[in-house]
């Protein structure tokens, strides 16, 4: 194939290298529609194998230095993992139903088990991923997952979003600094300053959204107040502008919070990746444009819905191409030399067959 010739010799020298995404919408369309069809026909059972084909396609088309990443999980393994989690959940609920005192048991167990499942899921995702025949590994535990995901989101929620950057920092550190490749560590430590800088814009966008909703309420105050005092006073004709405003308010809320979330997500990605090093010397980088990223995400959803899902493969490939091609790594020293030295390290090898997926977590 012509690609083999053009891709392989790509820069063995050190320096900066961008990731290339070689997936094509037309090619993925076939994989996607067959996945959907077989998932429907098997009432969902095939979805485990569908996930394997989808991930193999996306990983296999993510290329660094002419070599692609690889996804190694097996469909049966994912299916068994899902059945274990589902089975545990059903058993818990049956126990809770049989012994009414234990009504809160499922919630309690889920809260305790969730960090463990997240850690397990991250480890699974890392261990079924390889680059140049060497697997990734993840060494984070349940305690770290509890702090990063549960404590972090709790803090973010009770401070109405003001501490979100702190939570993002915890997540980035937990995921980034526990990642290993061939026994060598990644190190991530995004600073709060840049995180808050990208958070501020999102916060303002969310405020604008809330402002519009407050305005809508004020405009309809003459109708809302009597309705609260004496329900049923309004004629259906009077209710129409009220329902209209409620629908607009819902859309505004969805749109502004969606845009704010996407802006923030792109900003955090840039800050986090650019604050990550591999083996203490090779610097990772992300330079996605927040506006462009948000535009791609929103137009993807609109196009997907308007085409009854048929443009979803195009949308998925478009997003993957944009984000990966704005990601790169600066190697210090000779790359050939570097990859001559990297060897798989004990724990990550082969043990994925004893692993199960736990809580699926995109990695």
């Amino acid at each position, binding site marked *: 194939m012509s690609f083999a010739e053009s891709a392989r010799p790509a820069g063995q020298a050190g320096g900066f290298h961008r990731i290339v995404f070689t997936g094509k919408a037309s090619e993925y369309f076939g994989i996607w529609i067959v996945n959907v069809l077989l998932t429907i026909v098997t009432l969902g059972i095939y979805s485990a194998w569908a996930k394997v084909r*989808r991930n193999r396609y996306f990983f296999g088309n993510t290329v660094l230095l002419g070599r692609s990443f690889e996804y190694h999980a097996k469909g049966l393994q994912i299916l068994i993992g899902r059945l274990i989690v589902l089975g545990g959940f059903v058993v818990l609920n049956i126990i809770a139903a049989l012994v009414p005192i234990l009504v809160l048991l499922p919630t309690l167990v889920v809260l305790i088990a969730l960090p463990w499942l997240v850690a397990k899921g991250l480890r699974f995702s890392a261990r079924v991923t390889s680059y140049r025949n060497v697997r990734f590994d993840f060494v984070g535990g349940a305690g770290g997952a509890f702090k990063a995901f549960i404590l972090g989101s709790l803090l973010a929620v009770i401070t109405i979003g003001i501490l979100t950057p702190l939570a993002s920092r915890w997540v980035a550190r937990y995921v980034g600094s526990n990642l290993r490749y061939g026994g060598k560590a990644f190190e991530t430590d995004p600073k709060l300053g840049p995180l808050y800088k990208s958070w501020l814009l999102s916060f303002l966008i969310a405020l604008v959204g809330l402002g519009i909703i407050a305005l809508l309420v004020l405009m309809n105050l003459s109708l809302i107040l009597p309705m609260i005092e004496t329900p049923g006073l309004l004629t259906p004709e009077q209710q129409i502008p009220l329902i209209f405003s409620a629908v607009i308010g819902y859309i505004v809320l969805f749109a502004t919070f969606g845009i704010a979330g996407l802006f923030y997500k792109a900003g955090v990605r840039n800050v986090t990746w650019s604050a990550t090093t591999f083996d203490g010397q090779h610097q990772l980088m992300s330079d996605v444009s927040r506006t462009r990223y948000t535009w791609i995400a929103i137009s993807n*959803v609109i196009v997907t819905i308007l085409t009854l899902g048929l443009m979803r493969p195009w949308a998925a490939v478009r997003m993957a191409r944009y984000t990966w091609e704005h990601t790169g790594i600066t190697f210090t020293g000779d790359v050939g030399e570097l990859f001559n030295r990297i060897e798989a390290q004990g724990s990550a090898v082969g043990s994925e067959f004893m692993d199960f997926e736990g809580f699926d977590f995109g990695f």
Partner: protein
Amino acid sequence: MKGSILASDNAAIAAGEWHPAGSSRSVEARLIERAGEIAAVPVGGEKPLAGAGLSWVEISGRVGSIPRRVTFPDGSIFETWDNDGVDRYLAMRGKGGAGLVHWLEQFRLRLIVIVLLAFVLGGAVYRWGVPLLVEVAIATTPPIVPQLMAKGTLEALDQTTFSPTKLPDDRRKDIADGFARIAAQSPRGAGAYTLNFRDGGLIGPNAFALPDGTLVITDQLVTMAGGDTEMVVGVLAHEIGHVELEHSLRQFYRAAGMTGLIMLIAGDVGSAVEDVLVQGGGLLALSYSRSAEAEADRRSVELMAKAGYDPTAIARFFALLEEKLGDKSNTNILSTHPGTPQRKKDIIDYSRIISGQSDPDLQ
């Protein structure tokens, strides 16, 4: 293949790179078949790096045009972008080439058939598959489950909201006698139902049925009805209808089934579209519970007629609701219950039909 001159008994398969087991070190190599064995030999060399019989090597399945891996028994791998070369070799050795799934996935005109099949089967699963699964689940649910669900719910409500009834004994007896008359008309028999009186507290005027046949009516509803016992019995007949038709279990299984199906295709539709689907599913569930209310209304009319009561007694209850709560709203897609004026009309129409009068809409 790079013009290398191959010995006559060497069949070239593909060019690529070879990795020792667990190492990122790579050697430029080609895959050949020699003397019944498949082997990786270095470019410009003849001594094989690894080799084994075809049944001893593992060749990864084809997904799009991502690189193929050939894993040798010693754990070393050969990786190539030349999918066609590998497929040609596999086809020649009677191993089916790239496989059936890949054949289906190719971007050819026949994909249209798969797209149509996916839509038709998706609709069929929604229309018949989910309801069928719900029926199977209901049929296999042991009676202990609804009993436990009901016991837990009533205990919880008693502890938090309800207090013992304050109705006079003779008023309760009137209602209980009327209830026994209609319960005897239910195919399950009067023994399948138990009527409980409670002071509703915050819940106010209400009546509800638990899936095991436990019915609860609040003092507030009885008081609101004034002296009209027949009307209260009409409401209880509606609740018996919910129990007979197993609405609560059915609704629970339906919601669980739909959520499960959406989650299984989530990876193939993206998280934003998944959210939209879940919201849409919620709206559909509301409209489903509206049809359940209409079914229970009709059952009330039937039971009341059989027991020799006024079949439209429950319509009087809706008239009272309109008067007291000012509910004049028309049926609205966002509401759980059909608008009360509409329900009243449907009840009167239905009672005419079952009493042998002609359908008023056809007059």
